[in-house]
């Protein structure tokens, strides 16, 4: 068939296809997925995520288990999103002995009902440098909350996490307001950053009330000499809410994970379905056409595999052999070819009896010519529909296997994300943004293929009749 014919039949096909609304919906969703899968790399806030999914240092600056940013819309209590505070007001004052005091003042207006989770100060330099950090609150209270001599390096910034390091410092400035209160606080049990942003009252540990207003965070460094290159620090505010879909307990941005998972869902789904349908169709035609012993062997094989329960088998094999994703795909194919086999078998049996097949034999056609030229083209439409319809199940199988922790841990798949969620108690802790997006994504992609497949089936099915 030349190009013109292909275009014509494609156009005709499109006309019919566009009449089935669900098919269009399915196609639209699929196109969105594909585009996101292809270009998602540039959309996500964490482009290197695939390589670093299991690397905790990559995610350091994220808040842990933070709900998505837009939840602020629905919450009575709004929390700050993650920000990076840059461009502080820098003052340099020289001291008598040739050192410079570098003061960087960061302004931060807190109008939120909930405090951020952490303040992370990133500093760079080359060598030792005494540093202190102070915070000044809207009501005038505040003061130094941390000081130390840091070893800075020019290649890698040093992080100072106030949530981890500022406990005693915070207690200090609380002491100046309420001595007894400060005395009752245990530095290992309090949340320094929460307290920093809350009003000082006796109940502040258990039910902190936010102190809203302008805050100043001052980082003071004693630069030892003029050769010392002290970078202007930045402060990462680890928000209460973060990201389009929040973060998980390992601080990973879930939105990134979902986008990255698209690629794998598509690969697994499409590859598996194409391989299994092609194999099923071929074997079905061969069994139907040649009959006899070939038919007997293939049908018994079909019956055997058809009766095996897929998931338990996959679980057992995965548990023993810990396969990579490619091996898993192959395993699923081993089961899925049976789906199209039987239907194709009965259709091929029918087609085999058609007069035009007899006519072709009368002309001297060999078996392969009949299979390739006469039988297969009629089954092609069904094959496409079949492929589309088997993808949802395949995606779910992979997710189930991953869910049980038996999947390929080197890839980011939605099943993996779900697995992490459940093992880390996402449900118990009400971290719904960890559980729902991957589940929804699986369902959506499955649904889009199901719609597509049903639409294809609806259009192409009548044409399965050869008259």
């Amino acid at each position, binding site marked *: 068939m030349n190009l013109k014919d292909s275009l014509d039949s494609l156009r005709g096909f499109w006309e019919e296809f566009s009449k089935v609304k669900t098919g269009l919906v399915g196609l639209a969703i699929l196109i969105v997925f594909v585009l996101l899968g292809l270009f998602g790399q540039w959309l996500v806030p964490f482009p290197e995520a695939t390589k670093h999914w299991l690397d905790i240092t990559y995610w350091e600056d994220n808040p842990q288990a933070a709900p998505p940013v837009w939840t602020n819309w629905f919450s009575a209590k709004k929390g700050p999103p993650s920000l990076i505070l840059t461009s502080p007001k820098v003052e340099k004052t020289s001291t008598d002995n040739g050192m410079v005091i570098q003061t960087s003042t960061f302004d931060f207006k807190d109008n939120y009902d909930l405090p951020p989770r952490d303040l992370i100060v990133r500093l760079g330099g080359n060598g030792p440098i005494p540093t202190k950090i102070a915070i000044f609150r809207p009501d005038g209270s505040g003061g130094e909350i941390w000081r130390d001599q840091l070893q800075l390096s020019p290649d890698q910034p040093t992080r100072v996490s106030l949530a981890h390091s500022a406990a005693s410092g915070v207690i200090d400035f609380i002491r100046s307001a309420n001595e007894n209160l400060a005395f009752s606080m245990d530095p290992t049990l309090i949340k320094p950053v929460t307290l920093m942003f809350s009003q000082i009252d006796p109940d502040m540990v258990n039910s902190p009330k936010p102190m809203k207003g302008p805050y100043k965070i001052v980082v003071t460094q004693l630069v030892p000499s003029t050769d010392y290159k002290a970078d202007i620090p930045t402060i990462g505010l680890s928000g209460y809410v973060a990201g389009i879909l929040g973060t998980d307990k390992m601080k990973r941005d879930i939105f990134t994970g979902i986008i990255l998972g698209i690629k794998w869902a598509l690969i697994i789904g499409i590859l598996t379905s194409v391989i299994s349908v092609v194999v099923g169709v071929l074997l079905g035609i061969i069994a139907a056409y040649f009959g006899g012993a070939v038919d007997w062997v293939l049908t018994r094989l079909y019956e055997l595999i058809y009766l095996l329960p897929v998931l338990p088998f996959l679980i057992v094999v995965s548990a023993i052999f810990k396969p990579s994703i490619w091996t898993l795909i192959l395993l699923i194919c081993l089961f899925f070819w049976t789906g199209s086999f039987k239907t194709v078998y009965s259709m091929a049996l029918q087609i085999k009896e*058609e007069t035009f097949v007899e006519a072709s034999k009368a002309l001297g056609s060999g078996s392969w010519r009949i299979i390739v030229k006469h039988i297969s083209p009629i089954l092609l439409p069904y094959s496409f529909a079949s492929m589309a319809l088997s993808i949802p199940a395949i995606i779910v199988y992979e997710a189930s296997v991953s869910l049980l922790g038996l999947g390929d841990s080197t890839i980011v798949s939605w099943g993996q994300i779900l697995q992490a969620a459940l093992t880390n108690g996402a449900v118990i802790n009400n971290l719904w943004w960890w559980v729902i997006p991957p589940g929804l994504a699986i369902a959506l992609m499955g649904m889009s293929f199901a719609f597509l497949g049903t639409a294809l089936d609806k259009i192409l099915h009548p044409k399965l009749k050869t008259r």
Partner: protein
Amino acid sequence: MPSPENSHAGAKTPIALELKNLRKEFHVHRGKTIIKAVDGISFSLKRGEILGLVGESGCGKTTTGKLVMRLLKPSSGSIIVDGEDTTAESANSKESDFAYRRRVQMIFQDPYASMNPHFKIRDVLEEPLLIHKVGSTKTERTEMISEVMRKVKMTPVEEFLDRHPHMLSGGQRQRVATARTLILRPEIIVADEPVSMIDLSTRAEILQLMKTIQQEMELSFIYITHDISTARYFTDRIAVMYLGRIVEIGTQDEVIDDPKHPYTKALIQAVCEPVSGRVGIMRELEIKGEIPSAANIPSGCRFHPRCPYATKECSEQPEPELIDVGGGHEQACRRWKEI
């Protein structure tokens, strides 16, 4: 003009096809029932002749056609084409089968079903060329295709080549089917009810076309039909079949105007014609009962349960072979002189 090589060399014998005692049995129900579809047929087809195989359903005419086409393997007997016994062991190889198919072609009853609906007419006609590797370039093949299309009067050729079968009328499809049989220049064509699914007003057109082509190309035709009236119009000789055997064979004038076998007489009695004065007048039918199953063939002369002239001997004595009743006209009733 390029033409496919004839697969046989030398002068052609005057008898294009000869069947000798051909039998075909089907074993059904795990071999418990044996259906004798063709139960000992012998006839010869002269070169350039049209022989009609006429009979009702179950008489074995279609099975005979398929045996000649090698779509079925005979249970016993021989098929001799151009002097060669094609049913001999030596002739059973794939190559000989392949070569055979160039010489014997078939036109099927249903003009729509005999073509793959996804194929274009061009593809339908190119298929035999591709299978037998005739015509090495696309241009050569297109020329051959155009030639046969012109032969069956499907012009302008380009208008039809890119169409699919469902875009043509029944008559047009049957022309294409005819063209398909011609493109390899066969010797023998088996036509199985070629016009029974076509409108009345187009039938004669197709039959006339086939006859013209047959005479031009010196083809030998086997014309299978249940409609003895079209056989009258189209054939040279007619063989009447009943329950797997030939009961009468002769020229069409002999068989239709002067039938000798009771079954042939019964068939002719039963045929209606478009003439007035028939309303309210019962048609005289001497024949009794219905066609028995080919699994249960009656003893002696197989027609005896239905024959109005049957005597006790007809059921007891062995089945009569074809008897010559004059000038090549043969029939299989031992009492023919008395009735």
